[in-house]
């Protein structure tokens, strides 16, 4: 028991994922390492195509068959990389669950929501139909779906986007997983609903002592919902640390750019939004040096030579940049911006 509590729930070491795309093979993720303790929450931030969803899917073992995964993913010390699909099926929806971005398409239109929420219960917990139904109604009630006893037999098209996301949350939580991966769970929802859904997820994570990996491109969502965060760019982690610490002293020019680029309320009308110039590099032909070099305001010749190492810049705070002396002297962060 003592060992179990100190051992990280999930431990990812030097994860690499190579995908076959229409433009040839692409190293979507490289050298990603992190550990997550039981009950801990971790945020994964970055633009589309930075590798955050691919990282999540590799934890779920749901990458396309053609993907090549290297490195190690351990759940409670047990290796997941290279696990057979049958063995992985016993973990998915049971010990590791995932909530997806698009509640409108994430549910099967042909089955009632009750049937879909009950599926993991019947499968993993071997519940009888009536047991599963009772538990499903309780779960739907817990995620705040109104009138669950009646609505349990309704079909997805009879619900709004926010309600459907509540259903997928109920589905993911049905078997009380150890780890919940939420991939942009509120991106497709109305702003007014976003907060409710995030609060619901936070409450449930707290209540059930789950670990959570929250994926978002929204720094605000990350700041409010997770204890630790990682910023990804071009398939690698470029900054990681406790959320407060990272927001206090952002070290990587990319993180700083991301922070400056967020739209601000109360800005004068006509003010142009700040952007990071250039575009995300194609994963099919990544530069050999720092992946951000082409867009970085602080770039020097050395940056393009080799991928910079992770530099320790504070308690648990790491930045993959060789120019932190300059970037962090500017002290860009929530406190100063």
């Amino acid at each position, binding site marked *: 028991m003592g060992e179990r509590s100190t051992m990280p729930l999930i431990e990812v070491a030097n994860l690499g994922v190579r995908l076959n795309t229409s433009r040839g093979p692409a190293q979507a993720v490289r050298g990603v390492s992190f550990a997550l303790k039981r009950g801990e929450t971790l945020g994964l931030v970055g633009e589309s195509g930075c590798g955050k969803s691919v990282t999540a899917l590799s934890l*779920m073992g*749901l990458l396309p068959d053609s993907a090549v995964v290297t490195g190690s993913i351990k759940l409670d010390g047990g290796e997941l990389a290279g696990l057979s*699909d*049958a063995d992985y*099926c*016993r*973990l*998915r*929806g*049971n010990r590791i*669950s*995932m909530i*997806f971005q*698009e509640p409108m*398409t*994430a*549910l*099967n*239109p*042909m*089955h009632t929501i009750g049937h879909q929420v009950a*599926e*993991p219960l019947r*499968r*993993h917990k071997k519940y009888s139909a009536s047991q599963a139904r009772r538990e499903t109604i309780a779960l739907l009630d817990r995620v705040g779906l109104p009138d669950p006893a009646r609505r349990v037999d309704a*079909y997805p*098209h*009879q619900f709004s986007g926010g309600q459907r996301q509540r259903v*997928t949350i109920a*589905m*993911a939580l049905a078997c009380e997983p150890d780890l919940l991966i939420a991939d942009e769970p509120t991106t497709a929802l109305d702003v007014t609903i976003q907060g409710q859904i995030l609060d619901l997820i936070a409450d449930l994570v707290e209540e059930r002592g789950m670990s959570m990996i929250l994926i978002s491109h929204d720094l605000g969502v990350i700041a409010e919902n997770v204890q630790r965060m990682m910023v990804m760019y071009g398939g690698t982690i470029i900054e990681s640390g406790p959320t407060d610490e990272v927001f206090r002293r952002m070290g990587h020019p990319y993180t700083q750019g991301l922070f400056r680029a967020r739209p601000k309320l109360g800005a004068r009308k006509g003010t142009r939004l700040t952007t990071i110039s250039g575009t995300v590099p194609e994963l099919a032909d990544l530069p050999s040096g720092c992946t951000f070099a082409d867009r970085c305001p602080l770039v020097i010749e050395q940056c393009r030579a080799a991928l910079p190492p992770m530099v320790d810049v504070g308690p648990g705070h790491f930045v993959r940049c060789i120019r932190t002396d300059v970037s962090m002297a500017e002290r860009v962060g929530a406190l100063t911006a």
Partner: protein
Amino acid sequence: MSVFVLRRLLTLLATLVGASVIIFLVLDALPGNAAQMLMGADASPDAVRALTVKLGLDQPLAVRYLQWIKGLLVGDLGNSYVYGTPVASLIAERLVLTIPLAMMSMLITVTLALSAGIYTAANHNKLGDVGVMSLTQVGIALPNFWFAILLVLLFSVRLQWLSAGGFPGWEDGIWIGIKSLLLPAVSLAVVQAAILARVTRSAVLEVLREDFVRTARAKGLGKREVLWKHVLRNAMIPVMTVMGLQFANLLAGTIVIENVFYLPGLGRLIFQSIANRDLIVVRNCVMLLATMVVIVNFVVDVLYAFVDPRIKVHDL
């Protein structure tokens, strides 16, 4: 639900009325006088005229049409010009063969097509997929009467397992009847199955790309389970649509195939009646085929609503 069915029923009726008008007009516009045909080229004009009156062919178009429809409604289809017997019993005799033939053929089509379509989709881009899809390509290109002759050569002439044609009726036992319909049913089914297999494959592949498939996998369902429990039902709508359309093709195919195998079915009756200018039989047979096609498509429409819960709401 009932509103949905009611509206489809109205469409069905309108289609049948339209079909009856077209069938009547087209057959009426055919050159040649039935009475003249029946009596031969040497018949005296008076005799021909007398027969024309007797058959009611001297009446105006609209009157004759309404008489026909009135007869249809009470089940009186008139008498065959050639045989003199009631058309209704003539058709009934033939349906005993053609309906089982069509059903067997549809069953073979669906069995072959669904298994091939699901197999190839599940093994997308693998050797089995490419192999089966090449076979369906060949299947689509096969004329069914030619394929029927090949089947006869193999199973009747070479192996002598099945008879090359004819139909002994159902009196000697169901199995004997089925055996004599097997080759015709297979020849009708092959082309259809090839098309339907390709439709099934692409429908399944499309559904496999949907987000809810990933959700189901994330719940811990295996690939096969996801395919059976989540994908197939979603893929059935396009498959059912094509099946409904294929039923019409199938009936048209029986006209050719029943002739290849000397089967006394509806198709052969139509063929012979056209040759004999027995237009009253032709007209009623074609109307019957049209009705069967329309009813099958109505059933398909209603089945949509059973398969897809979204349809009821959208159409109410």
